């Protein structure tokens, strides 16, 4: 019998994997993928809570999170492209100053 805690543990593990990616990787694009993993982990927890508490609110929240994630990725990748035009690099080690 698969209970709520099984889904929550998968969600927690996926969230920490995403966080490890953000800390470990030096490429901005892969760091963004780590952020996506973290958002997805939160989505999984919300859907699981929604199913086990008999309430639709969690699923509506996931719908909004997916929308915000799509907008966030579009803006973030546009920022990365703009940065790349200035610096010819997407490594975080090369982007240490605030001045363009």
């Amino acid at each position, binding site marked *: 019998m698969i209970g709520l805690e099984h889904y929550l543990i998968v969600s927690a593990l996926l969230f920490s*994997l995403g966080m490890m990616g953000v800390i470990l990787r030096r490429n901005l694009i892969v760091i963004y993928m780590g952020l996506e993993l973290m958002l997805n982990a939160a989505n999984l927890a919300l859907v699981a809570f929604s199913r*086990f508490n008999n309430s*639709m609110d969690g699923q509506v929240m996931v719908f909004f999170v997916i929308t915000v994630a799509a907008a966030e990725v579009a803006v973030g990748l546009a920022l990365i492209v703009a940065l790349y035009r200035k610096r010819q690099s997407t490594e975080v080690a090369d982007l240490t100053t605030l001045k363009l």
Partner: protein
Amino acid sequence: MEALLFYLFASLTLICGLLVVANPLTRNPVTSAMFLVLTIVSMAGLFVLLHAFFLAAVQVMVYAGAVIVLFLFVIMLLDIKSVEQKGFNPLSLFMGLLGLLAVGGMVIQSILRSNVGQGLKPQLEGATKELGVELFTHYVLAFEIMGVLLLVGMMGVILLSKKDLK
């Protein structure tokens, strides 16, 4: 049967998630994006097991269809040749593993100790109709704001993509 499918999709999600962030064979961002697709699709399988059929479809369409394609567009557009082939910085490897263990261990410990799922039965049938009704009655203001957010995001992207960014 359901337990078998759960373990299949959960292990697939976690293994592909690990290969997104720390693939031992290659540091290529395209590989990471492809494993992110696999992660998203197996997570859609978990959504189906949770009877959230509409969200599973949205997950595949929006993430695997739109977001990953955007990632791949940018990776190909920037044409990053000098992919970091050297191993990870030992300090960041240490900190990453520490963060993984700390956050994962802390959250899993608290889940196991709090008995959060005790006595709860899976009961919600996530019918698309109910989701739509909820979305357009109770959450209609948030829905409209989401539309404005997408418009603002689109304008921001167009502005940022201009050649002569001031």
